[in-house]
């Protein structure tokens, strides 16, 4: 996530535009959007007689229609999802903390904190989304006068007031096809928090080509660890240890060990 905060253009803008251009009410059903400035209004995505995307205002006798302008696509966002770009002028939070977490010499691209990004996804523990938020909110970081809970810094949609999101949330307990908190392309990086999360992620079709980081406590339930060990053993047929990635990572603290595997080419 921190690496994505340094990268210029590490956001959902282009993916969002493509999604708007290709959605049709016939395939996606009724699509409701909101505008990031006119926040009180709701719009329906329709296609005009030429097949062009239009946003038609809802709840008015004589509704306004807006056209999709590529450079302004980020003004529109899907109802129930985070805005692609936050409210203009809104004060950024926790910049000091993010800066302090970045490796020495790396620059924080502040624009990224105003924009949603779906490259990284977090698969929470079996307890569910609310429990995960509760656990993460108990971990607090402070730099000088600025203090934040880890749940806020991770910027999962709904966990912090700015409302843009830098991480998609994957709920292992949700029904098939409903695990991610918002639609999007397959994540580039999936973090699985615990054995239950890893099991759920392991076979998920959207994660087949993603990089996966599984974080497992050795004090987890022995039965879960056994099941996970069996899965990992099966994986070992197609994966080889990757010492290159290992050398790029910082030395972990005492008690934490890292195993990196790369799929055989």
């Amino acid at each position, binding site marked *: 996530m921190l690496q994505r905060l340094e990268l210029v253009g590490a956001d959902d803008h282009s993916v969002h535009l493509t999604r708007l251009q290709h959605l049709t009410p016939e395939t996606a059903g009724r699509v409701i959007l909101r505008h990031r400035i006119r926040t009180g209004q709701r719009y329906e995505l329709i296609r005009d007689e030429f097949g062009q995307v239009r946003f038609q205002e809802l709840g008015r006798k004589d509704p306004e229609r807006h056209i999709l302008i590529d450079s302004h696509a980020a003004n529109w966002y899907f109802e129930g999802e985070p805005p692609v770009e936050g409210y203009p002028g809104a004060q950024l939070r926790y910049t000091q903390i993010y800066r302090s977490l970045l490796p020495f010499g790396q620059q924080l691209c502040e624009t990224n904190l105003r924009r949603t990004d779906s490259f990284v996804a977090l698969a929470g523990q079996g307890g569910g989304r609310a429990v995960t938020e509760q656990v993460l909110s108990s971990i607090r970081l402070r730099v000088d006068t600025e203090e934040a809970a880890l749940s806020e810094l991770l910027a999962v949609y709904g966990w912090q007031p700015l409302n843009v999101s830098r991480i998609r949330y994957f709920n292992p307990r949700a029904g098939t096809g409903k695990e991610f908190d918002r639609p999007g392309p397959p994540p580039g990086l999936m973090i699985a928090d615990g054995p239950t999360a890893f099991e759920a992620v392991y076979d998920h079709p959207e994660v087949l080509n993603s990089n996966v980081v599984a974080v497992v406590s050795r*004090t987890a339930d022995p039965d879960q660890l056994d099941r996970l060990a069996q899965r990992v053993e099966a994986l070992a047929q197609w994966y080889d240890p990757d010492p290159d990635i290992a050398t790029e990572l910082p030395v972990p603290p005492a008690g934490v060990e890292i195993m990196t*595997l790369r799929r055989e080419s």
Partner: protein
Amino acid sequence: MPRATAIFQMLQEVSERTHIRHEFTCPELSRVRRGMRTVIRALLEDDSAAEETEWLRHLLFTWLTIPLPFADFDSAPLLEGLGGPVAVGRLWGGDVLKAYVSALEGLAELRTMGSPLRTAVENILVSTAGSGACVRVFCHRKARPAFTSMYGWAELEEVGLVGFLHTPRDYRIAEPFDVLIKVGPLRRTGYSSLTGAVINAPRYRSLQQFTWSDLPDDTEFGRDPLLGVLDQGTEENPGQVGKRAYGGTLLWKRSEVRSGAEELFHTSSAETVDELTLFTRPAPQRVDSRAAVLVQIGADIAVMYPPNAEVIALSRKPSGAVEVASTIVSGLMGGESFLAWPDLGDVDLGGTHATDGAYSAIWKNRLAELFASRPIWLESELRREGLNLRRLRSCLENWTRRASSVIHAPQQQRHFEILIRVLRIQDEPCAGGRTSQAPWWLRAWAEIARSRGHAVQVGMHEQEIIQSELMAILGSVSGFLAQTAEAGRTFALPLSRAGLEGHVTFYYIDAVESGYRVPEAVLRTIVPLDRAYEWRV
């Protein structure tokens, strides 16, 4: 839950953890162990001695894994269970008799001595906790009195310097501490098992292990469960747990302290298999077993449930009120709830009845005749042949009853065979009976088995009806139940409503523990606690 910061801080501060294995040799105990091994081996081959075998097995397991004073090594089970030297010699022969006598003599000697292992545990406990270090003991609940009776335990416990860990969960939620004490070998499964996390995820500085001789630790105990499978095939030394090319490796300094004189003709552990391994029931295969939660409902008994099973329990709610409710078993708490255990006999819900089959009509008639005319002769004959049930007379009465949901008959095939033999039925012709070369009693047994299989299917539907009926009855007497529960002891509630007759025992729950894997057949049955401990994982 402990804060991650506290755990990492402790791991960072301690550059090297120590594991000291104190091994004790005691010739008198070795003599007892040898004797017991021979006796148990002989008993294992005798089906009729199953109960005695269990008793002796667990007695030996207890002696080897709990720091009891030798004075508490009770020889009564050996004497009473097997019926004395004459009976032992007659039933199992001269070699077993010799071993039996040797074990008894060894026990008599032991009872005059102090246990060096117990003394050592006591010394470490007093010296470490007494100097302000925080000590935790990993053991099963039954072992607690052996520690709490040690010198100074009560005072140290009062100030929080000593305490117990019983399950992987207990370890997971424990705050970092200084010293972990374990009595017995480090094993992954079975009676002496403990979570491998104590080695691969230490939350303490020093492990003090105390064990009798010839009880080796599992060679790969504490090997990281995940990285371990990926390491297979490499040349990494499995003994160096946690030693990896990359990572925040934890270093262990291991040492062994041996005390006590070895016997003159000592057999080394390399040549023998220890008793904990030799007499352990084979662990159930993964496909035949299920994760389970243990609910301890008395000093020596427990019930195993699937973790998400629903049970009827009497519990105190946050409001303070005591309520009967259907509850997920994992959510129950020891020390404040009661487990409702209905014993309803045959519940007649007007469902499917087994008819008296072709064979059962014959043997039930003969049994009824004899039971009416010569009950004393019948009972003594059955006992002499080996059908030695505690309440044989009421069983006989039950077996004469006509079929309801099942054909009432002995539970064990062996007992049924004895019954038919005593009834002198050899090849009685029966209408509708199958033509077969199999003995008559076996054909009759097949009929019983078929009726029982049918009853199981019907029973699943009936169970739901019974459950809801029962909840309604218990709800109507909730005030009485709450009042009775105040005493904090197991109690029984008689039921006499039409269709549901019998009683419900409300077992006081001592503890609820996860971390077990048991055969399917054991779930929802009352089992001895010692046996349950063998299924720890």
